[in-house]
Structures are given as structure tokens and as C-alpha cells.
């Protein structure tokens, strides 16, 4: 019996994490192409979730559940995708800068990126500048996200960007900054590429910046 990718998309929309994970495995076992499972199952579902979220028909707890389902499916698929296919899905590294223990906003952004099919590396909170630099070297992400909730820790984001320049890897990655006190203007001032005003728009802007 052929796996119904449309049904997989519906399960993903309904936030059925285990069902989506199992169905992805079934589809793989049946020999469906990983890219096809991704496009017609997982991404098709997340596209609907995105539309419904924008239309105020779905809300954060539901979206995150769907994102979790997406991520569970991606965990099965990622090892099977070709290098170019895996790269096409994108990698996102995110963390909160030194001196700032605020976690939830940054995590929300990370979860939304997972929902969009990205491989997300969540570095954590209160991070030294060097941790960001090392992570960019190690994971070669398309996007680096930094978060600060305090006006006192905001300048640290500029320091990370400068350190990336000094290490000669600034051009390898698009830098996104966000957090309640951060503005578009501030992002420009410190030389970031993208200002993420909220979790949902961060994903849209991030995708746009890297052409995905």
C-alpha cells in the first residue's frame, strides 16, 4: 500500500509528531525519494501551517507542534538526502549573547526554523563571542541568529560580527539579530544582514536572505 503524502501533510498540520515520524519511515521503506517525501509531505504541510498562522487560524502552541512533527520527519530524512539536497534545506545556528540569560524568544525562533525544515543548532544562552565564531566555522550555517533581550547586552551582537570579520568568515553567513529592544536601525548599525522582529517573520526574512 502506497504511503499517502497528502495524509502525511494533514497529520503534520494536526501536530501528530509520532504519526508523521512513523509515516516518514514507512515512505522511506517503500522506496519513495527523500526529496519527494520532503516536498509533498512535510513541506506541503508546513506551508499550510504557515498560511493558517498568518490568517490567525492557528496559534503558536499548534504551530510548534507541527514544527516538531516536521523536525521529527526531517531527522529521518536528513541522512538520506544528497549533500546538495541537505544543504538546500539550510542550517541555522542560534544563541543568546554574553550576559543575557533569556532563552525563550531565541528558542521560539529556533523552533520556527526547524518547522521550516532547517537544521537548527541551538548554542544556548550567555555565550562568549568565541562560541559563535567557532560554531560558524564548525557548522558552516547559512544563517547565524543572535538574540538579546537587554539593552545592556545588545552591543555584544556587534562584537560577534566584528569577531567574524576578524576571523575572515563574515561573508560565509548571513547574520540575523532580534530581541525586544533590537530595531531595524540597530541591526544596520552593527552590520547585521537581517532584523528579525518576531519568530514567524524571522523565518520569512531568513529564507529570503539566503534565497530559499
Amino acid at each position, binding site marked *: 500500500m502506497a504511503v499517502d503524502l497528502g495524509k502525511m501533510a494533514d497529520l503534520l498540520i494536526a501536530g501528530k509528531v509520532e504519526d508523521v515520524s512513523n509515516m516518514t519511515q514507512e515512505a522511506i521503506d517503500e522506496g519513495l525519494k527523500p526529496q519527494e517525501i520532503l516536498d509533498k509531505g512535510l513541506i506541503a504541510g508546513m506551508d499550510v501551517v504557515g498560511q493558517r498562522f498568518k490568517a490567525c487560524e492557528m496559534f503558536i502552541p499548534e504551530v510548534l*507542534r507541527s514544527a516538531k512533527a516536521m523536525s521529527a520527519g526531517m531527522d529521518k530524512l536528513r541522512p538520506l538526502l544528497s549533500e546538495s539536497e541537505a544543504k538546500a534545506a539550510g542550517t541555522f545556528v542560534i544563541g543568546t549573547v554574553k550576559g543575557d540569560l533569556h532563552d*525563550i524568544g531565541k528558542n521560539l525562533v529556533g523552533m520556527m526554523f526547524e518547522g521550516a525544515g532547517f537544521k537548527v543548532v541551538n548554542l544556548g544562552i550567555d555565550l562568549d563571542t568565541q562560541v559563535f565564531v567557532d560554531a560558524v566555522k564548525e557548522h558552516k550555517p547559512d544563517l547565524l541568529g543572535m538574540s538579546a533581550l537587554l539593552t545592556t547586552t545588545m552591543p555584544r551582537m556587534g562584537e560577534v560580527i566584528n569577531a567574524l570579520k576578524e576571523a575572515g568568515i563574515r561573508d560565509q553567513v548571513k547574520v540575523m539579530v532580534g530581541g525586544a529592544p533590537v530595531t531595524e536601525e540597530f541591526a544596520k548599525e552593527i552590520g547585521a544582514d537581517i532584523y528579525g522582529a*518576531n519568530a514567524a517573520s524571522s523565518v520569512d526574512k531568513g529564507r529570503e536572505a539566503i534565497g530559499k
Partner: protein
Amino acid sequence: MKSVMPDMQPMNQTVQETPQFRVLTEDQIEQIYFAALDVLERVGSRVHQDEALQLFRDSGEAVVSDDKRVRVPASLVERALKSYPRKITLQGRNGKRSVALQKDHVYFGTGSDLPFTYDRKTGERRRTTYKDVADAARIVDYLPNFDFFMSHGIVSDAPNPQTYDRHQFMAMLEGCTKPMVVTSVDGEGLEDLWKMACLFQGGEEEFRLSPLFVAYIEPISPLTNDRTAVEKLLFAAEKGIPAMYTPCPSSGATAPATIAGMLVQSLAETLLAIVLCYLKKPGMPLIMGGVTTVMDMRTTTYSYGAPELSLASAANTDISKWLNLIMFSTGGCSDSKCLDEQAAIESTLSLLTAYLSGANLVHDVGYIDSGVNASLESLVMNDDIIGMVRQVGKGVKTDEEYLALKIIDEVGPGGEYVTHDHTYEHWKEWFLPKLMDRSDWETWNNEGSKTMSDRVNAETQRILDTHEPQPIDDATKKALKEIIDAAEKRHSK
């Protein structure tokens, strides 16, 4: 190492399901009540209607003077008070028994008969028409937080001012399927509206079990009852139609300048109707009411936005509950000439207070310009305010599931709740705003920097463009028209 959860079944608990709000103590209510009885025994109330005067005379207990003043002994008042039902459930033409009038059940609805309207196209202030009433009806039919409908505006383009009420009711019925509170020209007008309503309920007896409407009737403060008001009361008593006799005293002008004094007088006015309807025919649901507010001492305006309106109405509701009477109260209204910050502030204060007080029918929602101007936008804005107010009324649950000790334990320091099942299950209990903007600045800016009034306007237009109420079938429409035509014929002579 995780420690073991504590036992979550304590003994000797008193749990508060909802917030508790009260203005008067029982002792204070008794003081006001005894004072009102005293007013009826010594001062009395003037009644300009012959049948009523005869009923008082025939009682052998009330005293009727030559100047039509009626004085009533406490014993008769107290006997009469025992004859009123403590509950009545209204049923809209949609067949839903959706408004259960009983102690501490709160329902919201519009006011009636506003003479003016801002034209939505031209922005000009003009007289209210049939179409305006039908539009308001559709808006209220759509808005989920409105439970009952009063006409909002007055139909000024009817063929004859003596029969406008039948046309107005028709506009209300066309647009709105919910229960109603209706105003009528006189007793004959009420009879026609009642006949129209009986077409939907399936006859007189069915109407009595599940009335479509409550008849709005008011005395003239201080202590005066005009002919048409009394006619309506007597007809309602005879047919068992629920009616409210709702004084509209303005403190400092037609009632004492103190809230307690105003409540004494307004209760005396209500109690006179309680006795009259009892003498006519015991048993009809008579609803206590009152738009109890102050006259503004700079402008002489009868204020719909004064905090005294809210306070006095809540106190009056305390009295109604003590008397076992259903209460008609006021909220969601404003003195502002347009839908602005003042309108929002005043509407919110009175809605919250009326809701917490536990009044049964909270009317005048959406009034602006001190009860002179109609505003569909105000109805739409108030719908969101009522949603917020009802949320406050939900109170705080403190059982095991709600204390969430297990969840706090699982998540631990530095964790997150947003993906937890507990959040997924409970966040839907929150109020979900339709018009309140909670977006971040960038999103708000990108979407056109819309203010509350921009959003209210857009939503009002959307409802007007899209909402079609359940239609009235042709046979009923024809029967309704026959009643209206017959009235026109009688009055054209």
C-alpha cells in the same frame, strides 16, 4: 534527584468559582428597601391611567387621592413581591433558549431608539432609518458576545409615528435571530408586537414559556406614571409578557443627588408597578431596572459615561437579587460624540462593573452621545470589550491540574512551557482578541499602522458586507405584514 510530589487533596477548603463583587451589605439593602416602602406609604406615586387607578381603589388597601396620587401600604407591596417568578428564559426566533434570566446570569445587548446616526458613507449626522436598525440587527446577530437585541436606532422613516414601532420590530426581526427587548408606542403597539412574536414562538402559551422578548417600559421620575406606560404594563400583566419597569432618574435633577436617595426613589417607582401588575393579574415576569445616573452639572446632560452610573447600577443589582427580581442594567455606553478614547474608557468601566455585579440584562451597549447617536462601530468595539470582561469573570481555578505543580517539576529551571502538552491544552481558555493589537512594532508598522478605530471600521464593514441572518420564511413574513398593515389602516382613519 527528584523529590516526591506533595499530596494535593487538602481538607476544609472554600473555593471561589468566580470573583465576588458587591456594593451593598444586606443591612444597607434593607435600609433602602424600608425607605422605599415609606415613600410609597407617605409620598406615593402619581398614576395617569384610569384602569390602574380603579385597580388601586378596588384593592381596598391602596389610597388614591384626587390628584391621582396612589399610596400603598407595605403589606400589599410585600404580598405583591411574592408573586413574581425568579427566572424566565428568552428564546430568539432562531429557536435557541439562549438567555436564561436568573440570579447572577449576565447577558449583554444594545439600547434602543437612538434618533441619530452617522452615515457611514457621508460621515454626516442624520436621522436613523429602517435600514440602520436592520443593519444594527445584523451586526448584533453576528457578534458572539451580544446576547439580546434592542433596536439601537429609532425608525424615523416609517409612514406614521403612531405605528413606527411595528416597522421597527420588523427591521429587528429581519436582521437578528436573537432574543430581544422591545419598545412600543402604547398598549396597542405592544399588543401588535406581541402578536408578531407569537407567530415565531407558536402561539400565546408557547410565548409565555419561552418569550421572544421583554417589553421595555419606563416611568417618569420622580414618581410619575404616564398613560401609555401604564397601558403597556397592564397589557403585559394580562398576557404574561415579561416586562421591565425601568426608572431613568437623573441624580441631582429628577432624583436626590445621593446614590442611596436615588435608589430609594427608583425602588419606590418599581414597587408601584409591582403592586399594579399584581392587582391586574399575578404571575407575569416583571423585571426590575434602572438607568441610574447623574445629571452633568456643567452641561445638564443625562450622563451615560459617569462612574456613578456604574456604581449605582451595581448597587441596584444587589437590591434586585435581595428582592428575588430579575435585573435590567446598563453598560457599554458613552457620552462621547464619536467612537474615540473616551467612548472606549467609559464603555469598559460600565461593562466590567455591570458584569461583576451579576445583573441579568446589561443594555445600552454601543450608545454614544449620551443616548442620542447610534454607532455600529461602537457595537463592534464593545464586542471585544465584553469578551475581555467575561474573561475576568472566569476567576482562577486552583485544583491540581491548574496548580500545575507536576508541570513546573517537569520543565524545571531555565526550561520552556510553550511546547508542553499542558500549554497546548490550556491556552485555549484564554481570551482571544479580535480587535486588540498585540503585534510587534515592525509588523504593526508594515501592516499600515492601523489604530483601533481603523480596525473597528474595517470589521464593521466586513460584517455588513458578509453577514446574512437566517431568513424569515415567506408565510411568516406575510403574517407579520398583515399585522403591520392592519395597524396602518386603523391609524390612517
